[in-house]
């Protein structure tokens, strides 16, 4: 079985994001990029599945040269091969899904893991779109995954509980926090990763259906108010919480 895992290279969640001068993209100055945190669960589940059932794992990422860093990490964690779908262009979610679907098809992979969303633009849609384009089954926001021959039983996280879903391969699974604890790269993995070549495939221009025309920062936070510094301020604090903030 060939297991694919799609990984995205995103700004570190701790990074301070600024908008660049064109008004519609991120200013990358001083921003560190990391493996999309939800994709780490996808990588781990791909590795666990391989360890259990054998097969081959491949990581696929769409983006520019810097995405190689994320692919390198996937390799260091133990993924067998990596492909970079190389582009400098903006790809909307559907364009990303189309490119990924084509690659997954070319790789002949019947089980595909995605993080449930990328923490950069939060569209939470690429996994599902890719499944549809491939005509694969899809289970999203998975917190427990079990494979028995070609049958999948997966727990999905829903408000206040879990939904247990059954489906068949081929399938796309999007992973949620709680599914597993992603491993760290091992020394052996690092040594092996250094020897591996990341395959590069240059993409044609995308045919986007959506376009980002601007970015806005949230309104600056209102400054706090100090009412007092000892217990005599409590009645006033309670009054304000009740009457102004209306939280109690």
């Amino acid at each position, binding site marked *: 079985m060939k297991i694919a895992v799609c990984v995205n290279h995103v700004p570190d969640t701790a990074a301070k994001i600024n908008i660049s001068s064109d008004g519609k993209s991120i200013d990358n100055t001083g921003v*560190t990029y990391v493996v999309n945190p939800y994709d780490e669960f996808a990588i781990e589940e791909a590795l666990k599945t391989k360890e259990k059932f054998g097969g081959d794992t491949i990581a696929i990422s769409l983006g520019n040269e810097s995405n190689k860093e994320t692919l390198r990490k996937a390799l*260091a964690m133990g993924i067998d091969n990596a492909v970079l779908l190389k582009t400098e262009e903006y790809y909307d979610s559907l364009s990303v899904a189309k490119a990924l679907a084509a690659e997954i098809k070319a790789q002949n992979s019947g089980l595909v893991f995605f993080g449930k969303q990328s923490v950069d633009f939060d569209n939470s849609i690429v996994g599902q779109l890719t499944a549809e384009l491939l005509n694969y089954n899809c289970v999203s926001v998975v917190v427990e995954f079990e494979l028995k021959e070609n049958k999948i039983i997966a727990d999905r996280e829903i408000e206040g509980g879990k939904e247990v879903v059954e489906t068949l391969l081929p399938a796309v699974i999007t992973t949620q926090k709680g599914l597993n604890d992603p491993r760290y790269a091992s020394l*052996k993995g690092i040594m092996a990763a*250094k020897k591996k070549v990341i395959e590069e495939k240059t993409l044609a221009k995308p045919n986007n259906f959506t376009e980002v025309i601007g970015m806005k920062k949230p309104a600056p936070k209102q400054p706090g108010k100090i009412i007092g510094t000892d217990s005599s301020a409590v009645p006033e604090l309670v009054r304000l919480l009740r009457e102004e903030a209306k939280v109690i």
Partner: protein
Amino acid sequence: MIIKTNQDEIQNYLSDASNFSGNCRSVYLPFSELEIIEILKSCHQTKTKVTISGNGTGLNGGRVPQGGIIISLELMNKIISFDSTAKTITVQPGVILKDLQDYVESKKLFYPPDPTESNCFIGATVATNASGTRTFKYGPSRDYVEELRIVIPDGRIINISRNQFTAKNFNGKLIAEDGSEINFTIPNYKMPKTKNASGYFCAENMDMIDLFIGSEGTLGVISEIKLKLIDLPSSIFSCIVFFNEEINALNFIVEARDHSKNDSAENSSKKCDAQGLEFFDFNSLKLLAEKYSQIPAEAKAAVWFEQELSNNYDFIIDTWMSLINRYNGQTDKSWFAVNKNDQDKFKEFRHKIATTVNEIVTKRGLKKVGTDVAVPDKFFVEFYYLCKNKVENHNLDYAAYGHFGNSHIHLNILPKNLYEYELSQKIYSEICFEAVERNGTISAEHGIGKLKRNYLLTMYGESSIKQMAALKLVFDQNKILGIGNIFEEKYLNY
């Protein structure tokens, strides 16, 4: 300045991370050096005791008052100046270490001292000569202090740079900013050659700035600090290696330590040049296993090391790899940080062990008993087993970890009841004694404060403590500042 007198406002200032607590009348929060002078002068005249407070992250009761007032430096938290060419930064004492580190790193420079708790005030790290993981390579805070401004209890200011005032044998002399001379005798006890934070720094012909570094708020209030910075390493190789046999982990550390010291001194290509070599025993890993399911089940010990990389990446990794193989480290299950994010997670892993121990004992309504001992390298492995056996012989819960590259052990005993707590104290005391027997130290980094005074007495003997007290009296004739830190108040009355 802000003055807090309401008892419910000042509760936070009455204890530290050791859970030791005290009492005081009021807390003074000065905005400036002038205000520190004003407070100290008035207390000097009225003979009011003054305890200086950092951010409460200490582990020995140093900032815990026993009556009198507190001066907390939290409002003096400005970066005064930064010089990228000279690679120095001048700050007020209340700047938080983490903020200082982030600030200089954004300017591509680096401040190496890194105590595990980075929410401490920079002034407090100087007052306690704080160290941490990276001390193995870079030394403690002392090595980075270039200049200090200190207000002594009578209100005079001492502005002292490194190499400005040197002692003649054991005779110290300082000139205050008003031109007055301060003459004193430096105690002549021999400090251990290990990493050390026990008592005043004293040595023949010493640089007088060193007297104030690690003086635990007993000689003056630090109002300004100029620190030396170094270039920010371009990248870091960080790894947690798991071992199936504890002795292999210890021997791995011994060899990595020797390589790091020798390779870096003799060889410019610097094969092994660890920033730090940290150890975790089986019990520590067991405590962490709940939060880190990735820890290999068969691991009996782990070592975390970090090394800076330049363009010799492959060479360094190969060197470590063969060292790990030689001691049967688990190369396929060890953790390797591939980016800053992972490095921070490893740091968090190290920090977690200390916080987990604290959580457990706090839930039991008790306090942990944790050693801070260090011994000369040649005794290290034998000493480690001696400490461990002492605890195991009494069937006490414990976790052993620490800066083993510096032969520095945090053996944490987790008592389950009051009887075990008292037993732990007894074992702690025995371990301190054994460390002193081997020319080691009872406190390598936490300092003495109010909780370890008796052990300092064991380490240096009463006549040395009296010399320290006599030295303090030169700066603090009215016995007001940091009373009870390092030695008991009674020594000031001989």
